[in-house]
C-alpha cells in the first residue's frame, strides 16, 4: 500500500516539475525544487520524516567537512551523497555516530588498552606504541554502516536517528589483529563472548554505558582489527581516535570507537546495548545468529544485508531526449562480495547487468555502471538491484522491524525525458 502511495506522490512530483519547467523557473527556485539537504525522495526512496528534513542542514564539526547534521549532542552527522561517487569515503566526510554525549578528547600518549575478563589470562594494558610495535599490522578495506542507516525511510516511521542513506562509509583500515592481541593475553577454553568498551561515557551516571560484545569465534577471526589508521591517516577524533574496533561485514554498532577495554568472558554480556537495543525480531532476516544472545522474541543484529546506492541520478530529474542515461553507483554486502548489479528501466519487468568496477576486497563498496540507451519523450523509472555472491538480493518491499534496521529496498528513480 505504501509503495502505491509513494508512486502516486512521485508521479505528482514529476508532473509538478514539468509544469515548473514550462514556466521557466529562476535558478533559485530550481535549487529549492532540487529538494532539501539529505532528502531521500530525490533518490527514488521513501522520504525521511518532515520534521527531520526541516531541522537538518550541512554543518562542519571541527576537522570535518560539512556533513548532514541530524543531531548536535551526541553528534550524529550523515555523509552527503556526493562522497559516494568514489568507492573510498574520505576521512573528513565519513559519517559520525555517537550514542552518548560524553566524548573525551583522547591523547595518544595517555591512551592504553586493557585486556581482562574471567576467560582471559593476565596481561598488562597496551600503550598505542606497544600495540603498533609488538604485533604484525594488517589492513582491510571495509564498509562501516550504521545498523539504522536509512531508518528515516521506514514506512510507517519508527523513532530513532532518522538517517537517510549516508550513515555509512568505506575505508582502508589499518591496525593489528584482535586475535593476536587476545592470544597475547591468553583465551581460555570457556570463552564465550568478547566485550568492548570505549572511552565515551554517558552524561548521567544512571545511563547505561555503551558496551558491546561479539561471539568469541567472530572476535578471533582474522579480519577483525583494532584499527588506528583510516585511509593512511590516524583515525579522526569523531571516528574513534586513537583506536577502534573494525568488524568487517558486521553493522557499525560493533565497531566500538575510542576502544579502551576488552574483556574475554564465559557468560553473555547483559547490558542494555546488547540485551535490549540493536535487536531484530527472531528469524526475520537470514543473517547469522549470535547464539549466546538469543531470546525467545528477538536476537541481536549481526551482519549487513546486501544493498546498493545509485549516485548518478536524482528522482524527478529531467534528461535530454535521445541522450544515453548513465546509471552509476556502489553496492556492498556483508563479505561474500558483490556478484552482480542489475538495472531495470521498465519497472522491473527486465533487468540488465551493469559493469562492475575494480574489486577492492570482499568487504568494500563495489562500483557499478551502465549506460541506458537514449529515450524519446516521456517518463521512465530506473531501478538498481544488487545480488551478493552468496545469492542474497535486495528486496522490493521493506521488511519492517521495530527499531528500523536493515533497510535495503530497491530504489525507483523517476526520470523525465524532455
Amino acid at each position, binding site marked *: 500500500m505504501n509503495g502505491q502511495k509513494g508512486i502516486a506522490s512521485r508521479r505528482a512530483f514529476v508532473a509538478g516539475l514539468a509544469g515548473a519547467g514550462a514556466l521557466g523557473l529562476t535558478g533559485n527556485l530550481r535549487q529549492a525544487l532540487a529538494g532539501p539537504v539529505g532528502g531521500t525522495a530525490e533518490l527514488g526512496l521513501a522520504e525521511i520524516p518532515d520534521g527531520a528534513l526541516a531541522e537538518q542542514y550541512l554543518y562542519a564539526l571541527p576537522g570535518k567537512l560539512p556533513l548532514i547534521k541530524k543531531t548536535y549532542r551526541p553528534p550524529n552527522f550523515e555523509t552527503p551523497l556526493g562522497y559516494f561517487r568514489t568507492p573510498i569515503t574520505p576521512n573528513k566526510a565519513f559519517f559520525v555516530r555517537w550514542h552518548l554525549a560524553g566524548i573525551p578528547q583522547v591523547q595518544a600518549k595517555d591512551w592504553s588498552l586493557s585486556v581482562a575478563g574471567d576467560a582471559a589470562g593476565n596481561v598488562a594494558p597496551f600503550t598505542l606504541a606497544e600495540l603498533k610495535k609488538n604485533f604484525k599490522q594488517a589492513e582491510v578495506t571495509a564498509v562501516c554502516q550504521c545498523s539504522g542507516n536509512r531508518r528515516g525511510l521506514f514506512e510507517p516511521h519508527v523513532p530513532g536517528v532518522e538517517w537517510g542513506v549516508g550513515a555509512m562509509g568505506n575505508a582502508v583500515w589499518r591496525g593489528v589483529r584482535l586475535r593476536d592481541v587476545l592470544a597475547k593475553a591468553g583465551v581460555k577454553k570457556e570463552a564465550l563472548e568478547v566485550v568492548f568498551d570505549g572511552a565515551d561515557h554517558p*552524561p548521567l551516571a544512571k545511563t547505561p554505558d555503551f558496551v558491546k560484545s561479539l561471539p568469541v569465534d567472530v572476535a578471533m577471526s582474522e579480519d577483525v582489527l583494532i584499527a588506528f589508521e583510516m585511509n593512511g591517516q590516524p583515525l579522526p577524533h569523531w571516528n574513534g581516535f586513537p583506536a577502534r574496533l573494525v568488524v568487517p561485514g558486521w553493522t557499525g554498532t560493533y565497531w566500538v570507537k575510542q576502544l579502551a577495554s576488552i574483556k574475554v568472558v564465559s557468560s553473555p554480556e547483559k547490558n542494555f546495548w546488547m540485551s535490549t537495543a540493536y535487536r531484530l525480531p527472531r528469524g526475520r532476516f537470514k543473517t547469522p545468529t549470535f547464539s549466546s544472545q538469543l531470546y525467545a522474541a528477538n536476537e541481536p543484529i549481526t551482519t549487513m544485508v546486501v544493498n546498493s546506492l545509485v549516485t548518478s541520478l536524482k528522482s524527478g530529474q529531467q534528461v535530454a531526449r535521445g541522450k544515453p542515461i548513465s546509471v552509476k553507483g556502489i553496492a556492498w554486502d556483508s563479505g561474500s562480495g558483490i556478484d552482480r548489479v542489475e538495472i531495470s528501466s521498465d519497472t522491473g519487468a527486465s533487468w540488465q547487468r551493469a559493469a562492475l568496477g575494480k574489486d577492492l576486497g570482499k568487504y568494500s563498496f563495489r562500483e557499478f555502471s551502465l549506460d541506458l540507451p537514449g529515450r524519446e519523450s516521456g517518463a521512465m523509472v530506473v531501478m538498481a538491484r544488487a545480488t551478493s555472491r552468496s545469492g542474497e538480493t535486495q528486496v522490493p518491499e521493506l521488511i519492517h522491524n521495530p527499531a528500523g534496521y536493515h533497510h535495503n529496498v530497491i530504489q525507483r528513480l523517476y526520470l523525465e525525458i524532455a
Partner: protein
Amino acid sequence: MRKLAMILVPAFSLCAAAGAFAQESKVVLKDAPGRDKTMQCIACHSVDYIQMNSRFLDKAGWTASINKMVNVFGAPIPKEDVETIADYLAQHYGKSAPK
C-alpha cells in the same frame, strides 16, 4: 526553575568542554506551554532529537519515548512532568501537529 537550572549547568559545561556543540543553542523548540519542562531533555541531548522524530508519533508514542528516557537512561524527569511534556510534544511535534 532552580531545580531545572541545576540539571542544565552540568550539561552546558560538558558542551563547553567539548567545544563543538555551541551550535545546538540555535535549535529552538516551539514557544508554547510545556516547553520549559521539555527543556529538561537537554541534560543529556540536544533537542533536535525532537524535531528529527516529528511528525509521526502520537501522544502514546511520545509518552513511550519519555518513559524510555526515564526508566532506561535514568533521565531525572519528575513523574508529574511526564504528562506535561508528552502533551507538549504530541501537540507541537506529534502526528497531527501543524507544520
